[in-house]
């Protein structure tokens, strides 16, 4: 129980830090928008093409954004030298990772939800009739991205060239998330939309596998 309580406290701290400045959310949102606009030049965004390529581009934009957005989550602690204090204040170091991962999932989900209508308008794709289902995909996808991403951000924060290293480590690992969530999104944006439950199940399995790995091995990432 103390694990969850600690994680919630840490989540609160992350949210407070972010909402004081809203730097991360604004920058990531603008970044996603830029990528979406640039992508529209790479093909003719008509109705059929948009349905076919749009979801993939959207998810690619999310992954790129995530690989940049996850950078500061441990760097901040490093610059302020607060990681050891955090470690001393909790009994289970997994709480730190859990708090950070929950915060990252929330931040990512929030920017994605903000950008989804913009994407819908720009590419003429009806996102609101399947909004509930889309939120489910976005949540499971973002959870997977942040679970793997939080672990890898903790790794890359301790290396040289960290800004370049995190995308290098993270993006190939997220291949399954990209494929499954793109497929589910394509099916949801179809003229006769349907929910591909196999994809949802797959994303859930991905999340579970990486959450378990993080739970088992995550504490080693925070060793001094």
């Amino acid at each position, binding site marked *: 129980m103390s694990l969850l309580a600690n994680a919630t406290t840490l989540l609160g701290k992350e949210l407070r830090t972010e909402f004081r400045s809203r730097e991360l959310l604004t920058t990531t949102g603008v970044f996603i928008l830029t990528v979406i606009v640039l992508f529209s030049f790479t093909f003719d965004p008509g109705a059929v093409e948009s349905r076919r390529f749009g979801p993939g581009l959207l998810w690619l934009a999310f992954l790129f954004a995530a690989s940049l957005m996850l950078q500061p989550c441990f760097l901040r602690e490093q610059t302020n030298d607060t990681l050891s204090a955090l470690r001393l204040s909790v009994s289970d170091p997994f709480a730190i990772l859990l708090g950070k991962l929950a915060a990252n999932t929330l931040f990512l989900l929030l920017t994605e939800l903000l950008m989804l209508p913009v994407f819908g308008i720009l590419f003429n794709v009806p996102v609101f009739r399947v909004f509930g289902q889309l939120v489910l995909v976005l949540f499971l996808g973002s959870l997977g991205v942040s679970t793997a991403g939080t672990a890898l951000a903790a*790794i890359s924060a301790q290396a040289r060239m960290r800004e370049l290293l995190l995308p290098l*480590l993270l993006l*190939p690992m997220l291949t399954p998330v990209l494929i*499954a969530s793109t497929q589910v999104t394509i099916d949801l944006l179809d003229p006769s939309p349907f929910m591909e439950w196999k994809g949802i199940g797959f994303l859930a399995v991905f999340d579970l596998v990486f959450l378990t790995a993080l739970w088992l091995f995550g504490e080693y990432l925070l060793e001094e």
Partner: protein
Amino acid sequence: MLKRAIFGLLVFGLVGASTYASFFIAPDERTMGLIYRIFYFHAACGWVMFTAFFICFFCNIAYALRREPRWDALGVSAAEVGVAFNTVVLITGPIWAHPVWGIWWTWDARLTSTFVLWLLYIAYLVLRTLIEEPDRRALLSSIFGIFAFLDVPLVYGSIRWWRTQHPQPVIMGAPGSGLAPAMLKVFFFSVFAMHALMLLLLSERYRVEKMRGEVDVFRRELEGA
């Protein structure tokens, strides 16, 4: 020294024999003709690649739990040997594919997941070059290695379900698939020979890594003094 030389000669004999067998003993394939013979080399390297990455995964877990430098040395050796075989697989595949399929590359499940696997382990090796402190490097890269290995079945599954148009597995595949008995014998001999080659490379690479570790310790002592 003598033991290593004998082992080396033995491995070269084995690889030579398996090459001979794949060219002159294995029967002709009905439709593909001569080019199919690269399969004995290509698929055997594929199996060896998985063995090497599995060794790497095992060493990563062992290091994370035990913190003995030898697991780290063996882990990075296995990763490098695995990447070498992975590269061979990625190169010999298109050499076979071009005459048979008419294209060098197609984005099907096994090709793509092998490629992603290669990217993951290249990332593992790059990560190791970017962390100076040996213990930290060993620990962080072992955790990354564990994550990367867990990702492999997920990568394969996702590509197979949603992105594929590819030939079914030939060995241990669906009923009705499979090789002629003579081909199977040659194939398993190639797999055996390639595994022996992997063991040779692994043990040599492990020796180098251990020496490098020792040199590193001396260098640090000198710098500290």
